[in-house]
C-alpha cells in the first residue's frame, strides 16, 4: 500500500475527528482529518489536552524540586528526562558528576531507552495488528521496571538522578543481574525481529508508508530515530557527548528510505546497541562516590541569604541588611540537550541567582514530531495514519507538558 497520488479533489470530502480518546493516538492527541473516500487530504493535529503547566510550575520549585516534575513529561522514559534536566543545571553551575555516577547514569538511560523502545514496539505493532509482539515486549519491559525498582525504589516516576550525580549507589548484585538480563535482551530482540522484520503483513503495512526525505526531515526539526530513519547522522550521544558516552563504543544505526519500515529497523538496531552499551558500562564500572561535593543540597532555600553589612560581628548594635543577596546559583541562561529515546530533549534554563529557575523551557521531541504528521500522512489511507502516529513514537505528556 504505497503512497498514491490523489487523483482529484471533489465535493465528496468528509471530515473525521480522530481522538482525543482514540486508543491508537497514544494519549490525548486529536486529529482533524479531511478524507476523500479513504485517502487523507488534510490533517490538522490538535494538542493541549494534557497540559499541566510543568514549565510554569517549575518556576515555583527549587532546582532539586523541579526535577521531580520532569518525570512527568515523558512518563515512559523518566530517567532520561531527569538526566537531561540535571545535566543542564550541572552545566549552568559548572560542576561535574563523579565518574561512577556518570556510568550509572549511562546504564539507566540506556535501560530507559530499551524500555521506551519496547513500549513503542509493543503499541506500534498492536496498532498495525501484531498482538503477540505486544505481549512479549511487555514481558521484558516489566523486568526493566523491576530493575528500576531495585535501583531507586520506584518503577515509573523514578526521580533517581540528582544535580551532580545520582541519589544512591547501585549494589553489585543488581549490576550482575542487569548484565545477565542484557544477554537475554539481545536474544529477545532477535525474537521480535523474527516475528516482524520479514513478515509479509508487516512489510506491506510499513514499507513506503510515511516516507520523508532527509531534507524535509531536517527542515521539520525531526530528531532521534525519526530523523535517523531518513539517513541523517544526528545523535547527540556522538556529536555532543555527555556522561560516559565518550568512553563506550557504539554504532548509530541509520535508515535509507525514511519510511516507517526503516524507522522500525533503526529502533530495533538501537535496542541492540543499548544493550551492548549497558554491558560495556558494567564492565568498565569504576569505584567511588556517586555524588559530587559541589552538588547543591536537596533542601536549598528559595532565596539566598542577605549580606550583613555591619562587619562580620553579629553583635554590633544595629545590623543592617544590604539589598544584595548571596547568589545560590550562577546567573545566566543555558540550553543543553540530550538524546532521549524519542529524540533531542533539550532544557533551556534562565537563572537569576536564586534557588529557583527563573524560566524553564522544554524542547520536547514529541511536540515537534506531531508537527510532521500532516506532511507524513499526505495521500495515505486512514489505516496508515495509525501506523504513522505509531512510528513517530509520540507521548502526549511530553508534547503538552
Amino acid at each position: 500500500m504505497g503512497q498514491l497520488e490523489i487523483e482529484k479533489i471533489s465535493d465528496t470530502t468528509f471530515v473525521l475527528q480522530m481522538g482525543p480518546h482514540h486508543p491508537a493516538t497514544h494519549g490525548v492527541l486529536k486529529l482533524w482529518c479531511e478524507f476523500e473516500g479513504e485517502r487523507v487530504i488534510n490533517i490538522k493535529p490538535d494538542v493541549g489536552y494534557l497540559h499541566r503547566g510543568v514549565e510554569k510550575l517549575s518556576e515555583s520549585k527549587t532546582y532539586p524540586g523541579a526535577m521531580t516534575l520532569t518525570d512527568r513529561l515523558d512518563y515512559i522514559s523518566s530517567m532520561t528526562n531527569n538526566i537531561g534536566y540535571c545535566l543542564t543545571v550541572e552545566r549552568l553551575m559548572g560542576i561535574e558528576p563523579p565518574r561512577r555516577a556518570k556510568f550509572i547514569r549511562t546504564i539507566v538511560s540506556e535501560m530507559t531507552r530499551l524500555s521506551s523502545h519496547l513500549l513503542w514496539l509493543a503499541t506500534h505493532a498492536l496498532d498495525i495488528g501484531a498482538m503477540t509482539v505486544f505481549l512479549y515486549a511487555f514481558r521484558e519491559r516489566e523486568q526493566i521496571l523491576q530493575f528500576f525498582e531495585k535501583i531507586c525504589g520506584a518503577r515509573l516516576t523514578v526521580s533517581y538522578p540528582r544535580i551532580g550525580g545520582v541519589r544512591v549507589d547501585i549494589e553489585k548484585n543488581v549490576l550482575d543481574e542487569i548484565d545477565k538480563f542484557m544477554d537475554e535482551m539481545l536474544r529477545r530482540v532477535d525474537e521480535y525481529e523474527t516475528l516482524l522484520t520479514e513478515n509479509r503483513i508487516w512489510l506491506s503495512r510499513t514499507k513506503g508508508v510515511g516516507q520523508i526525505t532527509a531534507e524535509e526531515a531536517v527542515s521539520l526539526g525531526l530528531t532521534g530515530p525519526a530523523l535517523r530513519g531518513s539517513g541523517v547522522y544526528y545523535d547527540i550521544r556522538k556529536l555532543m557527548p555527555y556522561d560516559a558516552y565518550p568512553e563506550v563504543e557504539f554504532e548509530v544505526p541509520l535508515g535509507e528510505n525514511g519510511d516507517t519500515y526503516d524507522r522500525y529497523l533503526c529502533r530495533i538496531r538501537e535496542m541492540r546497541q543499548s544493550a551492548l552499551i549497558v554491558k560495556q558500562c558494567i564492565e568498565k564500572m569504576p569505584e567511588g562516590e556517586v555524588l559530587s561535593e559541589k552538588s547543591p543540597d536537596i533542601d536549598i532555600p528559595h532565596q539566598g541569604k542577605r549580606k550583613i553589612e555591619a562587619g562580620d560581628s553579629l553583635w554590633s548594635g544595629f545590623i543592617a541588611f544590604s539589598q544584595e543577596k548571596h547568589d545560590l546559583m550562577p546567573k545566566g541562561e543555558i540550553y543543553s540537550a540530550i538524546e532521549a529515546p524519542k529524540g533531542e530533549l533539550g532544557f533551556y534554563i534562565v537563572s537569576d541567582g536564586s534557588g529557583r529557575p527563573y524560566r524553564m523551557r522544554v524542547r520536547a521531541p514529541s511536540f515537534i514530531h506531531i508537527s510532521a504528521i500532516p506532511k507524513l500522512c499526505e495521500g495515505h489511507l486512514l489505516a496508515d495514519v495509525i501506523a504513522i502516529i505509531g512510528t513517530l513514537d509520540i507521548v502526549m505528556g511530553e508534547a503538552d507538558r
Partner: protein
Amino acid sequence: MNNLLKKILFIDLIKGLLITFKTIFTTPVTIRYPKQKRPLEDGFRGRHAFVRDPETGKERCVACTKCAQVCPSQCIYIDYSINSETGARVLTKYEIDALRCIFCGYCEEVCPVNALVLTEFFEYASYTREDNYFNKEKLLSNWDEFIRQYEKTEYLNKFWHLPGIGRDRLPIGKREPKAVSKKEESQ
C-alpha cells in the same frame, strides 16, 4: 527465485509461528494479583510511616521542618511548640496528605534523624479521602502495620544511609544509622 520460494512456502510466517508455539511451553510470567503477590524490592517508596523508636516507643521526629521545606508537592504540614525549659522543639501537629504526595522520597532522604520513611507497603486504597490524610498517630500505626508483615528481622531503608554518598556531606544521624529490629517492636 529464493525469495519467491520463501513466499510461496510461507517461511516468514512459519518462523514467527514457531516462536509463539515455543512460548506455550515456557512458564507464565503473569501473576494472579490479589491472591499472589510479587515481593517488593528493598527501598520501595510506598506508604508513609513514622518510625516507632524501639527505645522510647514514640516517634523520632524533632520538628526541624526540613521535610516540609523540600516537599515538591507541599503535602506535609508541621506545627511545633518550644519547650520553655529545655528549649527543644516539641511536635504538636504533623500531617501528610498522601493524595497529593508524588513519592519522590525527598522527605526521607533529607530527614536528619530518620524519623520518616516510605515503607514497602502499597495497598492502602480507601473509600474515603480522610483515610489518606495521615496525622501523627496514623503514621505511627502505619509503621506498626508495616513492620508486622515485614519478613526480615531488621529494617534499614536505603534512603536512611544513602550508599555511595560521601559521609561528610550527610548529617550525623544519617552517617551510620542503626537498623530497626522487629523483635523489640512486637514486645
